[in-house]
């Protein structure tokens, strides 16, 4: 079991990876990636039971993770590489021609760790629910995790899946909503207010947990609790409050850094705030 200190070191390194990857190609989505770093680290290095070194598409006999908000691919790729799904050196190919690390995650180039393309929003909940159904048919006792954005919940398909999962007692499914309150055109409260999100899920028949997604220990505690509450007849959602751009002071708390790359000087500042811990790629 990794200690909290181990996990903290991983978050520092992954944040470095994120800003370096995005800086190198001057494109990509650093804000949401940085905000979800504690979640990815805790899930992949502590909570999930998975086999990074022998990736199988069907995920039989292991937990499965689906990223629905595919634009935060930098944190996903860095986490996968640091978990040994592939070499960390490959992070240098992010968004470049002939890469397996496409702008948005894809299975097309055979990148280990990715089981569905995502990027066009609103589809991951359905795909994850389908995998959960497959696991039930196979009597596979493992869990399916899915991360979705908060703005993404504006897509109607999400609610089709939310309705389906509750009605059909898909209780081997743990959804996390990255509730950072920001979307491209502004704050979610301005664009399409998410009032009563907890009540909305509960009204649809879900169990709801809440956590601060930028507090490592709280993330670990909540994910563990979620696992204990799963398989009790209801799907479960964690509403995860995060700060976009967390860990890089000038990117924090604003939607401005949703899809913008830092320049050389900004890169330096970001890296100064996140010292190298496990070796840069």
């Amino acid at each position, binding site marked *: 079991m990794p200690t909290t200190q181990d996990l903290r070191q991983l978050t520092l390194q992954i944040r470095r990876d994120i800003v370096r990857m995005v800086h190198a190609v001057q494109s990509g989505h650093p804000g949401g990636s940085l905000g979800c770093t504690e979640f990815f680290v805790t899930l992949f290095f502590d909570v999930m039971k998975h086999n990074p070194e022998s990736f199988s598409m069907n995920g039989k006999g292991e937990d499965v993770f689906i990223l629905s908000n595919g634009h935060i691919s930098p944190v996903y790729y860095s986490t996968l590489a640091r978990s040994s799904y592939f070499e960390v050196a490959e992070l240098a190919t992010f968004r470049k021609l002939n890469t397996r690390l496409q702008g948005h995650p894809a299975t097309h180039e055979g990148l280990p760790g990715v089981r569905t393309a995502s990027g066009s929003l*609103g589809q991951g909940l359905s795909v994850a629910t389908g995998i959960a159904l497959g696991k039930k048919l196979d009597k596979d006792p493992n869990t399916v995790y899915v991360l979705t954005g908060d703005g993404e919940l504006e897509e*109607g398909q999400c609610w089709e899946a939310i309705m*389906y999962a509750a009605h059909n007692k898909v209780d081997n499914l743990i959804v996390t909503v990255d509730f950072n309150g920001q979307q491209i055109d502004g704050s979610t409260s301005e664009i399409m207010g998410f009032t009563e999100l907890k009540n909305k899920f509960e009204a649809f028949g879900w169990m709801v947990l809440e956590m601060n997604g930028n507090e490592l220990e709280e993330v670990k505690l909540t994910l563990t609790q979620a696992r204990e509450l799963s398989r009790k007849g209801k799907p479960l959602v964690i509403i995860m409050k995060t700060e976009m751009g967390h860990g890089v002071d000038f990117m924090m708390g604003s939607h401005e850094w949703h899809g913008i790359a830092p320049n050389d000087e900004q890169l330096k500042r970001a890296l100064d705030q996140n010292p190298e811990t496990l070796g840069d790629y």
Partner: protein
Amino acid sequence: MKHYEVTGQKDTRSGFGVGLLEIGHKNSDVVGLCADLTGSLKMDAFKATFPERFFQVGIAEANMMGLAAGLATTGKIPFTGTFANFSTGRVYDQIRQSIAYSHKNVKICASHAGLTLGEDGATHQILEDIGMMKMLPGMTVINTCDYNQTQAATVAIAEHYGPVYLRFGRPKWPVFTDTKQKFEIGKAWLVSEGKDVTIFCTGHLVWKAIEAGHQLAAMGIDAEVINIHTIKPLDAEAVLESALKTKCVVTAEEHQKAGGLGESICSLLSQKAPTPVQLVAVNDSFGESGKPEELLKKYGLETENIVAAVQKVLEKRGK
């Protein structure tokens, strides 16, 4: 013109239902999903026989495509069932990203395609689905012509790895193909050999093309009729061989001219063997309410339209 005996009048969707049950018995990985149209899609028998492998998703087709992609990820072979319109246009991006681009082994099975849906009218009579689906990289597109062929195709696509769009229809239609046929994906079926003109046809219009072939024979025109049940991948070899022999071509389908079988044939021929072609298809128009036969007549998809197209293309070619 070869004679085909009509052994009954059955809907192609019932052929799908029987085929699905058959492969359900053969392969325990086969699962069915339906968006509140179990009776219309003839999936009741599968549902009753394999309740744990049948998923009622309600009126939520986008979610159905995602669920199917997820089930396929775990190694299942999902067959989704709804009307052709809701199987394609309504869920195009879900199919594109979660199924086609993600290489999921999902079988998108679509009933009530085309004008022969009848009285429900244009909202449901999709005439653009073949075009949409054939544009997706890696997607196999099949349009079957009768009950028996639909049953055989349903079995065949379960044994083929990769995403498939299987299109069939609502009305009772002549049954004339063999009951025990082996369906070969991507392999054209030579319905009747001829030398003067080739009629490439798909779906319900195969029977119309056979009728047209007999009328043409009476007029002294020896038509070759070839059923292109698999529009993608197109059997280029069969198309070119016949077109080079007859040197004039008619296509017949229950679809828009844009995006349909005719367009695929024209694209191939114009690049490999320029040949005069006449298309029998809907000409940039929506459908409307009416009886199937009335609609086929009004929109120019009848036997007589195929005969007229042959006469026209023969004129174009010059004797």
